[in-house]
């Protein structure tokens, strides 16, 4: 470590311990910082926005505020359900970001004052900003399925935010008798991780095949089509025969209610019963975005897709699952890409330059079996005021790929996870 690096490291460690007290002089050597940027939410989007802001302009003071002490990745959490991975492999701390000179604070932001340019946390602390970046993720529309609530989800876990919910679902699958039925209720578009429910079916089938081979998996879907559909359906059949059944919305898959006493799912046409029930609720932008008035009638946040500045308050940027980002899906890689575009736009604005021409990418892998990976990629540009797919680029793994290619893609899926988390946390 050079002296400068060591000084920054020591300084930032101190800030991480007591950031709210050290608001006065973050950089010992420099005078007042050029500007203060607050990033709220330390997931796929927020960590990247904070890090790339810091990398592009060290004269900006960057503070990352996250309610949890560590990050738990939803990506790869379906492998926890199959027993291929431990939840602790999905857990990441924020020390690497602190080492980069980002003040990392653990607090839950409850209130945003756009006019006063400050936010307030559950701790009572007030944080001032020149620019605010929100990466609040999703929240659940509990009222969309009658009988479903946060309390009911304690018994019928969604496992759509990794952590205790994932562990609970895993335990229920472990406790289930052979010959049981596992039901996934898949949400309507748009929602976090479009291929997730279908990868989950494959991962649980992988577990059932080895331990409970007489069991079935039923996917009750609000939709009539889903992400990577052809690749999933072919892969399910190849590895798990008839174990997985998908019921489209049109075929009666729409679930209107759940009876919390019996776990009966009430569809439009018939009722369904299973031994393990996994209702993934319909979604909207994270609670903070909604309470701050940043959402529109859709429940998501309209933004300037060049800069991710909110259409409601221009000094607040919204990235990741919560924002409306044209052709981009609600994925971890999309949030990563948006975090970088947003950081570049903020750096430009704080330095009196025009917002740069943006470039965005999405890459998303799903694991059907340990040696069977599939992917979708998207390359995007801004056209007018909308993020659009660049024609001729991106798309799916070929439907006729050989076993070697599938195995190579499975390894790339794990490397994707290694690298995207290293991009976030180191």
């Amino acid at each position, binding site marked *: 470590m050079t002296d400068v690096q060591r000084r920054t490291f020591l300084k930032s460690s101190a800030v991480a311990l007591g950031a709210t007290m050290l608001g006065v002089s973050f950089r010992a050597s420099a005078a007042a910082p050029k500007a203060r940027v607050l990033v709220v939410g330390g997931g796929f989007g927020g960590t990247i926005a904070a*890090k*790339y802001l810091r990398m*592009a302009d060290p004269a900006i003071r960057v503070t990352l505020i996250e309610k949890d002490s560590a990050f738990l990745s939803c990506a790869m959490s379906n492998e926890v359900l199959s027993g291929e991975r431990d939840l602790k492999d999905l857990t990441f701390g924020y020390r690497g970001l602190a080492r980069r000179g980002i003040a990392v604070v653990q607090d839950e932001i409850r209130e945003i004052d756009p006019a006063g340019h400050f936010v307030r946390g559950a701790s009572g602390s007030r944080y001032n900003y020149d620019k605010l970046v929100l990466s609040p993720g999703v929240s659940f529309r509990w009222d969309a399925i009658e009988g479903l609530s946060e309390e009911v989800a304690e018994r019928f876990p969604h496992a759509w935010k990794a952590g205790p919910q994932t562990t609970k679902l895993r335990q229920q699958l472990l406790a289930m008798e052979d010959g049981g039925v596992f039901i996934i209720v898949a949400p309507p578009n748009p929602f976090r991780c479009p291929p997730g429910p279908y990868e989950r079916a494959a991962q649980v089938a992988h577990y059932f095949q080895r331990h409970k081979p007489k069991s079935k998996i039923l996917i009750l879907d609000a939709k009539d089509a889903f992400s990577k559909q052809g690749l999933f359906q072919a892969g399910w059949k190849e590895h798990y025969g008839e174990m997985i059944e998908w019921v489209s919305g049109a075929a009666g898959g729409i679930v209107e209610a759940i009876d919390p006493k019996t776990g009966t799912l009430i569809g439009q046409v018939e009722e369904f019963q299973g031994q393990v029930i996994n209702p993934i609720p319909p979604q909207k932008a994270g609670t903070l975005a909604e309470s701050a008035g940043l959402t529109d009638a859709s429940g998501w946040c309209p933004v300037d897709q060049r800069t991710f500045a909110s259409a409601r308050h221009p000094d607040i940027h919204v990235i990741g699952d919560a924002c409306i980002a044209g052709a981009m899906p609600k994925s971890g*890689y999309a949030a*990563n*890409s948006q975090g*970088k*575009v947003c950081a*570049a736009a903020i750096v430009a604005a704080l330095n009196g330059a025009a917002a*740069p*021409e*943006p*470039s*965005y*990418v999405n*890459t998303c892998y799903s694991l059907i079996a340990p040696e069977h990976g599939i*992917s979708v*990629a998207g*390359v*995007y*540009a801004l056209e007018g005021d909308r993020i659009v797919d*660049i024609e*001729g*680029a*991106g*798309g799916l*793994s070929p439907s006729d*790929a050989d076993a*070697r*290619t599938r195995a*190579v*893609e499975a*390894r*790339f899926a*794990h*490397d*994707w996870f*290694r*690298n*995207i*988390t*290293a*991009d976030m946390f*180191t």
Partner: protein
Amino acid sequence: MRHRTRLSMLALGLTASLAASAAGVRSPSMLANTCAGCHGTNGASAGEQMPSIGGMDNGYLFSVLSDYKTGVRRSTIMGRIMKGYSDQEIWAIAAFFAEQPWVSTDRVALAGPIHVGRDIHERQCESCHEDGGREQNDDSPHMAGQWSGYLRYALEECRAIGRRCSPRKMGLRVMDLSDEEIEALARFYESEK
């Protein structure tokens, strides 16, 4: 070499196009940062099959990325992604990564395979991949300290298509290597930090 003419022609074209339009042009860092989600921040990969690309030769990166785009070089996902960029943008991406420092893997070397790998290297690779794969140019990548997972994959890929491997001389040299020899060779280059 093969790509020199193409590169200089492109460089001329790029200079002209930059002069013509600044607005609407996506900067090298804007383009290249989208790669980091898979290839690591500034192209320093966290492993294993995903190669590090930061610090690689400009011309080498340009030719490989272009070959992905046209399909000359087979890939799982890179072809789909590179089709989204113009030649000028691919040049900008290559130039960005070429300017980054090379970061070798921190993986501890395995003694046995490395010895075998060094023998193969000295016998049939060294004439192009000099100094244990440290030397690089637009025909030959930086391999010393590269992830063995990627090197193994690239060598297997080349072996699978033999004479059709680009460049052809690579295909001819790896065609008869066993799995164990490929593994040893990959481990050798990985250990040459």
